[in-house]
């Protein structure tokens, strides 16, 4: 059983499996008998699945493709089926060639000769050539022209990065503590009043979580809970 598992795994993909099936059944690669092929292909995939092998999505995709070709072959006019079969044949022939070449490369390939690292000579790479300012200008126009084909991002895209405000959680911890020191019990949502900035809202929320974790504030209630300062908000252990 193990041995079979191991051997089944050797298919490089759906095309490899199909080539094997075609060779085994002595089918004509240029005129594939699709019905025959579909059944055997599905049996193989099923066998792989039964052995809990990792059947990659490509195998299933090919199964769907084969079934589709079989289906359209049943139609009275099957030009589409012929077309699809030709495409599959082409792909199989190409892959067969690829495998043959791979085998040839494999026979000759060897890692037995080792090069060496370049000797550490720091070459003087300073440029000694000369160019005219006009040459440079022409290059500039050419570069700018090329860039236009890939439209530059709109200015807003850039300013967002530049103006993007990142509010730190620690600054919001100070904010919350300060508010609570003014009035030690208040409504939770009130802490968010007037904050429109997304980053600031998130930071405030994280700050409250931090304070709860540090047992410096207490939150109580379901809808809009009350937030209460514990022990004057002093950090645990301070």
């Amino acid at each position, binding site marked *: 059983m193990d041995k079979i598992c191991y051997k089944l795994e050797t298919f490089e993909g759906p095309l490899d499996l199909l080539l094997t099936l075609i060779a085994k059944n002595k089918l004509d690669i240029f005129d594939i008998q699709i019905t025959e092929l579909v059944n055997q292909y599905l049996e193989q995939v099923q066998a792989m699945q039964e052995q809990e092998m990792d059947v990659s999505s490509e195998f299933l995709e090919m199964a769907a493709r084969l079934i589709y070709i079989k289906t359209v072959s049943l139609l009275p006019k099957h030009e589409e089926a012929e077309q699809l079969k030709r495409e599959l044949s082409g792909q199989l022939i190409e892959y067969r060639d690829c495998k043959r070449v791979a085998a040839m490369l494999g026979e000759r390939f060897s890692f037995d000769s*080792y090069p060496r690292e370049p000797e550490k000579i720091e070459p003087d790479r300073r440029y000694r050539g000369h160019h005219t300012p006009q040459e440079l200008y022409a290059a500039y126009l050419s570069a700018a022209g090329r860039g236009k084909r890939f439209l530059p991002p709109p200015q807003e895209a850039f300013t967002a990065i530049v103006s993007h405000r990142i509010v730190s959680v620690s600054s919001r911890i100070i904010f919350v503590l300060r508010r609570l020191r003014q009035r030690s019990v208040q409504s939770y949502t009130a802490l968010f009043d007037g904050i429109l900035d997304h980053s600031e809202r998130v930071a405030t929320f994280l700050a409250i979580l931090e304070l709860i974790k540090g047992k410096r504030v207490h939150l109580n209630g379901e809808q809009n809970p009350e937030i209460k300062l514990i022990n004057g908000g002093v950090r645990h252990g301070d």
Partner: protein
Amino acid sequence: MEIKKLQGAIEAILFASGEAVSLDRIAEALEIDRSTAGKMLENLADRYRTEHGGIRIVRLEGGYQMCTNPEHAAAVRAALEIRRNMPLTQAALEVLAVVAYNQPVSKAFVEQVRGVDCSAVISGLVSKGLVEERGRLELPGRPLLYGTTTDFLRCLGISSLAELPQPQKEQHQEETDAEGSREEVLQQGEGTAE
């Protein structure tokens, strides 16, 4: 004497460079003409080959590189504690084949030929130094293009892509032989399916 000195200089250049050095560069550095340099390099390479020493000079894409004689691979690995490179997998060889004969190619092209995802195999080949990036396709998404390296040529023992083995056209006999060995496997596989 003069020739002896030039030969020494060529050896020194190849040795110090480590990588392949183009004939032009050697000729220019030694202030000799290209064809003289070429002849000297071929003579030198021949001498190294017949001497059966530890070093070889190989010709790669218009340049020359010094590397160790493969006969001594085991000794080199033992002394330098280099792990023996695992032979390339079938998947790696297939990807190499597609890249070598169609370069520069995008990953999508390789995957189309093989019918499976090849990302991991390609990045493995890149990290082994057998395949390298070759710019991008001017298409939406600007996919990377790949080609083979001079290390690839060296490992294959050829000097240029023109020397790649040419696949023979339509030899049905051979094909069925090669494919035949799989049949057994398949029959076993089917057995379990039932």
